């Protein structure tokens, strides 16, 4: 499988999926006009990856902001990861939250609870980088 790399734009995050290492990252801001169009190819790529791969998968989400249509697309994407986890793929989800960002902290905890997945919350920023929590 080829590496999936989408550079960041002013409304979409950088997406980098490295199949050999099992590392996926989504980084930046996600406020596209059409979130479904943006995320659909990423979800399709992930579906193919999960269908042929049984090794560990690490998904790192470091978003500074997302709109509600991105939220639904991310929910679908994380649902796929959750399904793979249930089927036995070792999965680690890291959600990076800036210090003092209640919006993103609530969003990550909400997703973890709703999907029933274990998620590592990594705090970053000026005042306390490096702290980690599991939710």
């Amino acid at each position, binding site marked *: 499988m080829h590496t999936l790399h989408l550079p960041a734009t002013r409304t979409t995050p950088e997406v980098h999926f490295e199949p050999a290492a099992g590392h996926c990252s989504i980084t930046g801001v996600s406020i596209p006009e059409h979130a479904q169009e943006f995320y659909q190819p990423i979800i399709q790529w992930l579906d193919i990856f999960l269908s042929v791969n049984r090794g560990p998968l690490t998904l790192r989400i470091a978003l500074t902001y997302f709109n*509600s249509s991105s939220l639904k697309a991310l929910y679908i994407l994380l649902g796929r990861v959750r399904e793979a986890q249930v089927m036995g793929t070792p999965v680690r989800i890291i959600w990076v939250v800036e210090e003092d*960002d209640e919006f993103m902290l609530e969003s990550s905890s909400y997703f973890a609870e*709703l999907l029933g997945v274990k998620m590592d919350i990594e705090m970053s920023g000026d005042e306390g980088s490096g702290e980690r929590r599991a939710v």
Partner: protein
Amino acid sequence: MNAPNSNLIRYEGLLNSEVRVQLTDLLMAIALTNLGSRGDLKKLFGVAVELLDNAQRYCSAGSVSFQWRIQGPELVIEISNLADKADAERLLSIVASIQSMSSEQIAEAFKQQLQDPAFGEKGGAGLGMLQIARKVGNRITANVRPEPDGVYRCTSQVTTLLRS
């Protein structure tokens, strides 16, 4: 420091992809320098983005009017656009529904909509107004006024208390 009542931004004109990007950049810059904590900033930027997304998605023609203004301890975010009858009625229905909901009912409606994998035919997730209500409460109003040529002027307004 802002005056007790002041306009942070007022825009009237076309709302296309480039304008949307420029407005969101500008909103973030204004929020960073005017709106206190990061929690406030993200929350209020979020409200603005959802309203802009709705206006762009459902605008049938003409220009939009968008403003952020401070009224005493509160921030008022308002957007106005032209829409066809079906979208205008849909806006009124959604806002009336949200106004009648408790915070628990809003949370449940949001959860159900999030778990529905379908997107609308115009690309919306059906979450925008519910997300606003979750984040800042249900002080959301919508006003619809008929205009010539069978279109409707839709004005949505969100009022929220600033924490700092």
